[in-house]
């Protein structure tokens, strides 16, 4: 069922506006890649081109090495799930799921039998005879997912399919996608603007910004080793301190922090995720900072500090603390990298 999908030098322009620029990306069989980016970054356009619903201005889409240029959407073997479930309102639940089988010429009975297996997969076989308009939002999206899977697609394309669901339903859907991956192992391309969703569902994340892929890599790598400040920002990183790298050590108001090997000497930003900094007793950290803000995130709190030091102008560092931190506004605290090392980027 799963295939390898490759975008090779793909560009798409609408008039003068270039939505995608030389995008190259490979999704290996049975892997899940999340295309993460803000609205207008071109991620949905990329998915539409893969599905054959839009044509690229240049470049190729390859599935298992075969160029899909000129192959109509219905012959590509890719199934697409939109943000809106788009269940056919004139069909009931089972007939929606049986749609692809019916289109291949199967009898109604055989198509429904095939569809029931997929409805069971999404735990909705009880609602098979229900009208498509009489489902909740979560149920509709489950049926949409079952309908796409019932086509036995080589690749499953998900275009922000869970963004209209509430957080509890979303978590249910994440579990369902995990079950589906365990059962069917489809190749999945997921478009989302939600970095949490991307991190939970995908094996790797491709960050798309203004039509260009800024970085593609495993989830942890993108969080802790971003290629650029933009990737750090898109992945929710709150800290970037300007300074200078000399001999593999970044010097800034945060002090002297060892950074990744191979970093050339010169000006660089130290990118430290808020989860990778600890608050310690003054004198034990690499820097000291004064608490300027406390923002509760429920189970976590963001502590904002103003850091001053000998190695550069003052800067702001935000630290993610589990629970309620034992600090007060204005208090001077010590700050220390969790792993005693950091990550530097030049742009």
């Amino acid at each position: 069922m799963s295939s390898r999908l490759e975008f090779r030098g793909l560009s798409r322009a609408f008039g003068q506006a270039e939505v995608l620029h030389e995008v190259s990306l490979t999704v290996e069989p049975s892997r899940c890649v999340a295309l993460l980016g803000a609205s207008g970054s071109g991620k949905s356009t990329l998915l539409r081109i893969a599905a054959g619903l839009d044509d690229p201005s240049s470049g190729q889409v390859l599935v298992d090495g075969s160029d899909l240029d000129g192959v109509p959407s219905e012959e590509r073997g890719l199934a697409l799930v939109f943000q809106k479930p788009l269940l056919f309102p004139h069909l009931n639940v089972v007939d929606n799921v049986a749609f692809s089988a019916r289109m291949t010429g199967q009898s109604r009975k055989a198509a429904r039998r095939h569809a029931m297996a997929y409805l069971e997969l999404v735990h909705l076989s009880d609602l098979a005879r229900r009208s498509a308009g009489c489902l909740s939002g979560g149920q509709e999206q489950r049926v949409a997912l079952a309908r796409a899977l019932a086509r036995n697609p080589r690749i499953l394309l998900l275009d922000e399919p869970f963004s209209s669901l509430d957080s509890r339903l979303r978590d249910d859907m994440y579990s369902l996608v995990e079950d589906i991956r365990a059962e069917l192992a489809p190749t999945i391309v997921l478009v989302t603007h939600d970095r949490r969703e991307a991190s939970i569902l995908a094996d790797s994340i491709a960050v798309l910004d203004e039509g260009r892929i800024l970085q593609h890599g495993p989830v942890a790598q993108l969080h802790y080793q971003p290629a650029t400040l933009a990737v750090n920002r898109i992945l929710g990183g709150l800290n970037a301190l300007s300074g200078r790298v000399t001999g593999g050590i970044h010097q800034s108001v945060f002090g002297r922090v060892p950074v990744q090997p191979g970093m050339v000497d010169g000006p660089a930003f130290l990118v430290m995720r808020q989860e990778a900094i600890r608050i310690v007793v003054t004198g034990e950290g690499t820097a000291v900072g004064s608490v300027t803000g406390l923002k509760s995130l429920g189970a976590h709190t963001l502590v904002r500090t103003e850091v001053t030091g000998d190695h550069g102008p003052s800067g702001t560092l935000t630290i993610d603390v589990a629970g309620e931190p034992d600090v007060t506004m204005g208090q001077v605290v010590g700050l220390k990298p969790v792993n005693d090392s950091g990550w530097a980027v030049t742009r």
Partner: protein
Amino acid sequence: MIPTLQPASASMRRTLPGGTPMRMVLGLLLVGWILLPLVPVLLWSVAGSWFAPAVLPSSYSLQGFSALATADAARAAASSLCLGAGVAVTATPLGYLGAIAARELPALPGRVVELVLLAPLAIPPFALVMGVNVALLRLSTPPFAGVVLVLAVTALPYTAFMFRSALATYDHRFEEVARSLGATTSQTARHVRLPLLAGATARAFFLAFLVGWGDYITTLLIGGGQLLTLPMLLGSAASATGNEQLTAALSLAIIVPPLVLLAALTLPASRNRRK
């Protein structure tokens, strides 16, 4: 300074004053305004004799309806039915194609198509018919076909408007989903577009049918008296004196079938909405 929200004054209110009772009264007045003109027709159709200044007929009879049971009336009903169906069958797909063109074409050509589609509304039927009948005669067009062609033009604005409204809310992504699920273009049209536009198609068909079913002027002038329809019989009966019962019965014969058809089209839809 951020302004605070003030309660709306009476003049700012958009809802009708008087609440539900007023809405019910206005609704009943509206229904009465539509139904009251039918009361004299209904009474005349079953009147035996009815002389002024009596408010109601002095006797009742079904002679009007029994006068309808003639071969001519049956032929006229069949002709009306064929004419309505012919106009609907012609104008419904044309209206769909026109609406598609108006939607898909770029702004200016799209507007031009809309103008062409709506133009028959601006032209008095009499003027349209007088211009066309000579051309149809020269082309030796059979009367029935000529009447259908001209009435299809008259019906086109209605059918196009129905499809234009339906297409405005039609989500083309249904078709994209269908394509990605393996449906070919023709399968998508048959299994997705057609069912999703079925309501609009039925409404457009109904309106076009009405144009053919109830037409008098075009049938008279283009048909050249060779096409006998129910409105032609009605016109003939109404022009004579002493035929009030037959005239009323003919009126009802023209009014009732479309109403039944309308009910058949709208009642299932409203039941589905309630579900």
